[in-house]
């Protein structure tokens, strides 16, 4: 088994409202799994089911091949979207308390906290109260508390909100490092550029149903339209455009370029290859720019949600 977490046709209703309808996901060990979807799609409900906060009506969830049980709590680290800390409690005390709730001993928690506080350069906050810290500072503490007990599965819901770009980057690197050290990550966000950067695998949930699931690479391949961006240097733009139009499907392109080129998007038929296009183009003009248009996670997200 190389799946750390398997959710099998999980459904949950709140009264008449269906929050999850037969949703299944498989998260393989050591991967970063992107759980995407518009607001109110049911992501948080699914995450809560995995955290045993909410019980599913039907379906079951396996962690490491075992049905979820209360002792699994210590194997999961969860950073919820709606997060906060006790405002009047001191940073160190609070972190110790939360670590102990995850089943760590006090001395071990202290040792690991020291390590993390030094790593993130927040060692001198130990005796400060949360209300004295800025939002970004509190978020750092929250991150440390989430990963402190070295869980097998980390669940981050919008982990970068509240961070400035520098700290967001810092946290991103930490997440990648944790993955490299063997942790599996479920990552829920609206920021598609971080999905591109981090996720190996994504699932898209819309109106309580899973509508897309797979490796990010595969999905991109599936969504790509065999379209190429080209930048051409020519004296007579309209002649060249017409010439190309005779052979290929052409539309206007918009990309940034240093030169004042003729910019086109050229869509190939499934029988044609990029080499066909390239050899045709080089025979007619100088090619300054040649790039396959790969759909971004953002494009895929919007397209899938709109079409469903």
């Amino acid at each position, binding site marked *: 088994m190389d799946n750390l977490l398997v959710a099998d046709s999980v459904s949950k209703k*709140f*009264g008449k409202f269906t929050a999850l309808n037969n949703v299944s996901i498989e998260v393989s060990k050591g991967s970063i799994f992107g759980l995407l979807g518009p607001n109110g799609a049911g992501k948080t409900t699914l995450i*809560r089911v995995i*955290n*045993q*906060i909410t019980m599913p009506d039907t379906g079951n969830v396996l962690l490491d091949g075992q049905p979820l049980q*209360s*002792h699994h*709590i*210590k194997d*999961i680290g*969860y*950073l*919820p979207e*709606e*997060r*906060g*800390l*006790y*405002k*009047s*409690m001191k940073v160190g005390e609070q972190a110790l*308390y*939360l670590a*102990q*709730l*995850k*089943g760590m001993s006090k001395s071990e928690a202290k040792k690991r906290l020291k390590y993390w506080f030094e790593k993130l350069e927040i060692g001198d906050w130990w005796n400060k109260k949360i209300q004295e810290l800025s939002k970004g500072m509190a978020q750092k503490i*929250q991150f440390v*508390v989430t990963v402190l007990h070295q869980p097998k599965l980390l669940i981050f819901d919008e982990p970068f909100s509240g961070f400035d770009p520098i700290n967001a980057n810092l946290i991103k690197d930490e997440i990648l490092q944790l993955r490299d050290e063997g942790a599996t990550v479920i990552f829920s966000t609206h920021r598609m550029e971080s999905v591109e950067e981090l996720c190996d695998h994504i699932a898209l949930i819309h109106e309580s149903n899973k509508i897309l699931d797979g490796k990010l690479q595969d999905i991109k391949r599936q969504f790509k339209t065999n379209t190429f961006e080209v930048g051409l240097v020519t004296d007579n733009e309209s002649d060249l455009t017409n010439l190309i139009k005779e052979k290929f499907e052409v539309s206007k392109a918009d990309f940034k370029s240093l030169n004042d080129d003729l910019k086109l998007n050229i869509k190939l038929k499934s029988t044609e290859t990029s080499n066909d296009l390239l050899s045709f183009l080089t025979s007619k003009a100088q090619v300054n720019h040649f790039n396959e248009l790969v759909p971004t996670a953002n494009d895929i997200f919007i397209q899938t949600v709109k079409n469903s």
Partner: protein
Amino acid sequence: MNHLPLIIKREYLTKVRNKSFIIMTILSPIIMIALIAVVAYLSQLNNSKQRTISILDESGFVEEIFKDTDNTKYEILSDVSIIQAKQQAEENEHYGLLHITKGDNIDSVLEGIKFYSKDTPSITLMEGLESKLEKKFTDLKLQQQGVDIEKLKSSKAKINIAQESFLGEKTSKIDNIVKLIFGGLAGYMLFMFIIIYGNMIMRSVIEEKTSRIIEVIISSVKPVQLMLGKIIGTSLAGITQFIVWIILGGVLMTVVSAIFGVNMTEMQAPQQELMQQAMETQGADMKIQSLMSAIYHLPLTNLVIMFLLFFIGGYLLYSSLYAAIGAAVDNETDTQQFMLPILMPLILAVYVGIFTVIEDPHGTVSTIFSFIPLTSPVVMLMRIPFGVPIWQQVVSVLLLIGTFMFTVWFAAKIYRVGILMYGKKPSYKELYKWLKY
């Protein structure tokens, strides 16, 4: 994993270290004692003020019955008209003037007794004057009809009915008063405890919601555990505060009465008056003895055990409801609509306790309310000193425990759903729906 001790510890320490909690703990007894001292001091001032009352007795019957006391001086006027007497009393700033007119016979004298004063005279003073006059005139009338007063006095029989239950338990009036005080104190303490610390639990739940820490916690702990931990931790903080209040209050009381020489135990609370009346009917030297035996006669073991059971049961019952309210709302202002159904039975219990248990501890009303779980802790605690059959106590405790388990289940349901709901002000209908989630 059982995190209950950990949660209790955190709740307790956070409460106890909280600045406003510390200030309240220390300041409340100081303020209370200061207030009592001021009131005691003022009433002493008032009592020690000497009053002079002019007496104009034109009948000649009653002059000799007015003897000066510490607080009251009597000035007997003679050979003046009522108009002059009034003038004199007013000029000399006397408290008042008692005028007894001349009459053909005693009955006509009785009709013409009048008291003149600048302000409305105090009730106790008037009662004192009336009883003095009544006594004298009764004697006079008896004499007129040829009764020998001395004989009458010596033939007066003094009765103090000894009370005994069919089972042979001896009781007395003073016993009843002691019972009343014990029961009342227990019931009232529970009432105060529920209101003060129930609110504290509610606020602490709301705080977890508004600070958004709840979801972090709830991913490691079961909601029921968190709720129970909160309730128990807060109660322990409450007990700590209560103990500090009692000790600090006691010490301050002693210190203050030593410094100001105000004997606060002589402060006249209504119960103490009753107590004194009851004791006056017995010999003064028997006072302490009978008080001790009254306490001794209380079913102490029963009382202590039942006090603990009802106190814990009643408190947990209400505090779980408070926790549920805290979970259902987003901020304290939204709690109002849910508070009324909690406060109503509580206040009802205290009223039933005060008005019916005193009158008839085993009457229908008191008995019924001592079975209803929402009122039973307060009412039963007030009844127990009067001797309640064990089966009634057991049934009532079982009912209380059953209801308590139900409310904890109910509160946990609301709590579980409510803590993750933000930005909505729920209605009762919605709360009902939550039960089914």
